[in-house]
């Protein structure tokens, strides 16, 4: 087959093989290579290479001190069959991603849609209100104050005062509350890049599409959303989905900051924490790399799956 295409191109490019043609094109565009070189070299060193290196190291027992031995699948076998905490972490990560990913995505989309018809000035203010928590660094620590385990915490104090509870609830030390609280706090910080992308996507939709739809018998705003708005802004929906999914798998900082590390009974222990534990504290680099590779595969898999689903919307 390749010979056939090569032949075809050779004709089109006046008696030149594909290789020769490519080489000529490359020489002609040397400036383009010079322009992408600084970025691509750094990107390769700090993003591509670490991923590849993780995969290689995950097959060894490397610990930063001794020469690594090749141990084939042993790390993965231990991970899936002998590490109960990893299974717990995987379960937590899954629950978290399945709740926070779609919820934050829908919240971003709905809020963007709600505010789309407001006047520009009000819209700017509302955008700021919803976007601010995600850019304000560690402002989520305020949830620690609100739900603090003593009577000065606003939630505990108010509940005590109303006589609804007789002693303070240790919200962040109680396995029952840890996960729901972390989910709420993560949702609170999750209206980020995808939210802005949706706002822009909605504003970019041509008004005449709605007018045409109204003539075609679209009756209310829900039909309009489903039949006109969402199909039109599909590229933004795709970009937003990737941003939301990646963020929902990457949570972990919120838990560590609010509940400590490790969290009580590993109630909110995620794959991210497991990775940090083995990579950053126990220096079992080989094992940690296996965890990283699993997490990497899960993220890419989830994103690809959702991308495929979205690309089918409205087809």
């Amino acid at each position, binding site marked *: 087959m390749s010979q056939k295409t090569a032949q075809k191109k050779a004709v089109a490019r006046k008696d030149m093989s594909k290789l020769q043609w*490519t080489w000529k094109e490359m020489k002609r*565009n040397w400036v*383009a290579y010079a*322009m*992408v070189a*600084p*970025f691509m070299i*750094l*990107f390769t060193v*700090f*993003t*591509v*290479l*670490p*991923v590849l290196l*993780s995969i290689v*190291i995950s097959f060894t027992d490397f610990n930063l001190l001794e020469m690594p031995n090749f141990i084939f699948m042993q790390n993965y076998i231990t991970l899936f069959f002998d590490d109960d905490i990893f299974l717990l972490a995987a379960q937590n990560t899954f629950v978290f991603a399945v709740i926070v990913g779609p919820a934050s995505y829908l919240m971003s989309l709905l809020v963007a849609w*709600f505010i789309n018809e407001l006047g520009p000035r009000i819209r*700017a203010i509302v955008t*700021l*209100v919803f976007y*601010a928590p995600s*850019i*304000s*660094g560690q*402002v989520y620590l*305020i*949830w620690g104050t*609100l739900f603090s385990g*003593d009577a*000065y915490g606003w939630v505990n*104090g108010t509940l005590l*005062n109303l006589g609804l509870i007789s002693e303070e609830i240790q919200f962040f030390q109680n396995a029952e509350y840890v996960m729901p609280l972390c989910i709420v706090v993560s949702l609170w910080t999750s209206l980020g890049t995808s939210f*802005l992308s949706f*706002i*822009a*996507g909605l504003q970019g939709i041509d008004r005449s599409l*709605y*007018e045409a739809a*109204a*003539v075609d018998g679209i*009756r209310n*705003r*829900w039909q309009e959303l489903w039949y006109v708005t969402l199909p039109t802004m599909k590229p*933004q929906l795709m*970009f937003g989905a*990737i941003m939301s*999914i*990646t*963020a929902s*798998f990457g949570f*972990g900082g919120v838990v560590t900051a609010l509940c400590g590390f490790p969290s009580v009974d590993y109630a909110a222990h995620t794959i*991210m924490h497991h*990775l940090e534990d083995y*990579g*950053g504290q126990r220096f079992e680099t080989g094992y940690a*790399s296996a965890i*990283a590779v699993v997490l990497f595969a899960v*993220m*890419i898999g989830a994103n690809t799956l959702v991308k495929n689903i979205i690309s089918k919307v409205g087809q």
Partner: protein
Amino acid sequence: MAKKLRTRKHKVVLNRSAGGDLGITVMLGLLGVFMFLPMVYVVMQSLKPLDELFMFPPRFYVVNPTFNNFKDLFSLMNTSMVPFSRYIFNTVFTSVTGTTGNLFFSSLAAYALAKIKFPGGKMMFTTVRTSLMFHSTVTTITSFIIMSTLKMVDTYFAIIVPAFCTSLGLYLMKQFMETNVSDAVLESARLDGASEMKTFWVIAMPMVKPAWLTLIIYSFQGLWNAGASIYIHSEQLKSFNYAINQIVAGGIRRSGASAASTVIMMMVPILVFVITQSNIIETMGSSGMKD
């Protein structure tokens, strides 16, 4: 024709039912309260005098606002081992150099990928786009190995150099150039004999101002909010955010100062966003993925 258009517009207005309006307003209001109240509470906490911080039952709002918490914070800063100005310098220095480099390298590469057809270009962009699909934490451990091989651990380079090549920055810049820089204008500049570098700098860059403002904001926010890094051990090289966290980690007695520090840290990104909001939204207009 004009008359016809008007009646159509009228129909669009009819699509909005009063019930729907009410429902949406209520939903938006509730979500707004959920988003906004914790932010207000941070500001309230930072302004509360000690007796209001520790009162029972706790009160949401402040009655006698005071700046004592901020004063406390500044006096606590003077007790740190390394002069506090050094932490501030570290954060400002890494934020500024990292952002400048990112802007330069990303827009240069984005221009070539968006506006010049060359073998391999598409593949490079696909690789960068794919990397949006995983979180950078995945690569922390092996990045550490690479950085220690390059002797970058515990230097400013460990923070600055990786900040030069953020995939989101390149992605947004490339998408924006593709839709907003017209090929015809570039072609006529090339015909006039302008070099590719000159076309990029003189023609393309001024046309994508919203995109580079967005890139600046994203890069700056990331670097400004950076706390402790596993690549930095020396106290003299640590960030402002890290230092402030150390101060306020001193237990419940410092909860006033802690709120004050949160307010200071969040002011900068919020102000920057307020100023540049319309540019960011404009950039996001071309953020979509087509396949």
